[in-house]
């Protein structure tokens, strides 16, 4: 019973463990891995997007800054042309100036005006294109910044630039580019005057950026020559649609710029910095929907994976439930089997007890028979014998009485023999066979010796041929031989010179032991009765016997797995043959 429980319990435990363990672990791993991957992917995508965005900005900002810078530098670089114009002419009339100025101005967008100012001490009138009223002209040219710039320009011998100034109210920022004009005269150059180019850098930027579509970028140019205070030179806010972008006052100053590109140029001995900032609009160009999408995608995948694992787990649980069911069924079936087995064993034990009891009863019975039945027989025979033994008693009895007493005694003997035969016959089925190799030759000879008494005074020859040995119970086989041989001796009683032949024959691969006599034989019509108990085919007064002998022979050889057969011709003897099963004994 013990072996039934553990393997199945073990299986059940394993399945539960696997299912539960698998699902728990699966969930955890799925969520962790999924979350991790999603986050990583999101971050990676976000970083990539930021990178792209920054690169885009850099590209655009650089492009625009370069355009602007180029434009400004072109102007600065072209001033010498104007200088040459003056330096190469003896005198320049106003018309000539105006013509040149217009041409020059046309070439450089953002130029507000151009002026010619003669050196100090010269009474020549300044030229200005486009024309200005005298008052304004003088006011402008007299400004200290311009004077300072003139002085410096003359000193350095090259164009300089003023700091940015506001003109026409606060709306416009202008710088004045001052270039000295000196005419070479013998060993020295005679300073003639100054060219003043008034430039609105904002317009320059405007013109420069006109060719590209400015979106989301603010551009400012600041004068950073004086490091402590950067001065706004030009301002070009982005052209981005402002409606959908929340605007706060002081956008460019209060907000920390997310992206910024700065270049610094030298503009006529001033240091100008071009700053390009990304506006919120530009920020919006960043495809910030990608990262959340990836995160969402990751979350969905993780969810799906978790669902899948959940379904696997639930399948596992289903399997587990099935296994439990089957296990329960098996256990029930097993329990039933055990019950049946117990019941069967009980029955077997009972039957065995019953058989043992029956056997014991038979033993007691036969013991009783062997003792208690014989004793009275002995008395009967004994006392009748005494009657006949004592001469004086015999003399008193007549011959008929003597004969009758003889009958009594004969019957007693018969009964005694019968009792012995019956006892032997009944004991046979209770006795256990011993299986051993039996020397048939020796056995037959020993039996013949035992029957010496029966052969007394008889003219009888028993010829024994070589007999192969066999396997069986020697004492029982002895009974077989005794019975067959004594029968042969008995039924040849009336033959003057009797022969009994004992041999072994091989018939169809089977060893058959044969006892042949040339005695009285028997009628083959009654052969089926021959081996029955108490069956006799001859009369008792002719051939005494109990009719049990051959029944005994048959029972014995059948217990050995063989059988016996008989053949005869009345008056011509009988042949008895028996065989044993070599292998299969009970």
């Amino acid at each position, binding site marked *: 019973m013990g072996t039934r429980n553990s393997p199945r319990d073990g299986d059940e435990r394993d399945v539960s463990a696997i299912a539960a363990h698998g699902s728990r672990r699966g969930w955890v791993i799925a969520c962790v891995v999924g979350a991790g991957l999603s986050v990583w992917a999101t971050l990676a995508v976000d970083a990539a997007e930021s990178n792209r965005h920054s690169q885009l900005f850099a590209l655009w900002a650089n492009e625009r800054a370069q355009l602007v810078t180029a434009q400004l530098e072109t102007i600065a670089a072209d001033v010498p042309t104007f200088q040459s114009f003056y330096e190469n002419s003896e005198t320049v009339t106003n018309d000539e100036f105006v013509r040149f100025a217009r041409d020059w101005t046309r070439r450089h967008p953002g130029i507000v005006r151009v002026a010619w100012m003669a050196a100090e001490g010269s009474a020549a009138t300044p030229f200005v294109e486009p024309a200005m009223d005298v008052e304004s002209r003088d006011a402008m040219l007299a400004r200290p910044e311009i004077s300072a710039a003139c002085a410096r320009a003359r000193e350095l011998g090259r164009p300089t630039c003023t700091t940015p100034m506001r003109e026409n109210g606060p709306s416009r920022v202008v710088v004045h580019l001052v270039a000295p004009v000196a005419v070479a005269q013998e060993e020295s150059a005679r300073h003639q005057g100054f060219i003043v180019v008034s430039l609105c850098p904002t317009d320059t930027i405007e013109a420069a950026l006109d060719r590209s579509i400015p979106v989301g970028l603010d551009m400012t140019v600041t004068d950073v020559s004086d490091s402590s205070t950067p001065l706004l030179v030009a301002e070009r806010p982005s052209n981005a649609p402002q409606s959908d972008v929340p605007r706060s006052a002081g956008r460019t100053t209060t907000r920390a710029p997310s992206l910024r590109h700065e270049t610094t140029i030298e503009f006529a001995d001033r240091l100008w910095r071009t700053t390009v900032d990304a506006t919120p609009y530009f920020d919006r160009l960043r495809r910030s929907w990608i990262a959340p999408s990836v995160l969402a995608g990751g979350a969905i995948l993780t969810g799906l994976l978790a669902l899948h694992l959940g379904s696997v787990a639930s399948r596992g649980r289903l399997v587990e439930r099935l296994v439990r069911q089957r296990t329960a069924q098996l256990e029930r079936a097993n329990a039933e089997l055990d019950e049946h087995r117990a019941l069967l064993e009980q029955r077997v034990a009972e039957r065995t007890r019953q058989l043992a009891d029956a056997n014991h009863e038979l033993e007691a019975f036969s*013991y009783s028979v*062997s*003792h*208690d039945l*014989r*004793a009275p*027989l*002995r*008395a009967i*025979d*004994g*006392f*009748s*014998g*005494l009657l006949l*033994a004592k001469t004086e008693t015999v003399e008193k009895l007549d011959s008929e009485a003597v004969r009758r007493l003889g009958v009594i*005694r004969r019957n*007693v*003997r018969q*009964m*005694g023999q019968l*009792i012995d035969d019956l006892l032997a016959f009944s004991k046979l089925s209770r006795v256990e066979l011993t299986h051993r190799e039996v020397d048939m030759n020796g056995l037959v000879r020993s039996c013949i010796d035992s029957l010496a008494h029966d052969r007394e005074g008889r003219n009888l020859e028993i010829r024994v041929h070589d007999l192969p040995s066999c396997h069986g119970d020697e004492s029982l086989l002895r009974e077989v031989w005794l019975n067959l041989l004594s029968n042969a001796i008995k039924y040849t009683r009336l033959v003057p010179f009797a022969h009994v032949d004992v041999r072994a024959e091989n018939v169809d691969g089977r060893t058959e032991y044969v006892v042949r006599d040339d005695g009285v034989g028997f009628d083959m019509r009654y052969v089926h009765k021959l081996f029955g108990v108490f069956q006799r085919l001859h009369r008792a007064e002719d051939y005494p016997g109990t009719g049990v002998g051959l029944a005994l022979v048959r029972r014995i050889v059948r217990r050995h797995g063989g059988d016996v057969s008989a053949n005869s011709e009345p008056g011509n003897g009988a042949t008895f043959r028996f065989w044993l099963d070599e292998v299969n004994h009970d």
Partner: protein
Amino acid sequence: MTEPFDILLVEDNPDDVELTLETLRSNHISNRVEVARDGADAIAMLFDPGGLADRGRSALPRLILLDLKLPKVGGLEVLERLRADARTRTIPVVVLTSSREDPDVAASYRLGANSYIVKPVEFDRFIVTIRELGFYWLIVNEPPDGRRH
């Protein structure tokens, strides 16, 4: 029972007793035979204080014919007693019984019987058996203590 006798017959069946006595007498084996009718009687006869065993070797029988199926005390127990006592240990005991059962034979020999004879049913053979065994044990056989009457 003060005279010495030859054979102690322990037998409960009166007919068997009569036949045996008659046979022993008529075949001139002996007529000095004592009979015990059951096992208890036999033991009392032998071992009771003042019994045969107490009275010395000459008081004891030269042969004991012992039936097995006896009332009160069975033959095997008597045999055991006989062999247990040094005074009676050497007396020849012939188990004379109807039973041919193997257990009885084996037990008898194991307990020290000298011989085991099955009483034949036929009277003629019974006579021969008694005569021969009597002749053998009282005349042919050399007694253990050299006592010959």
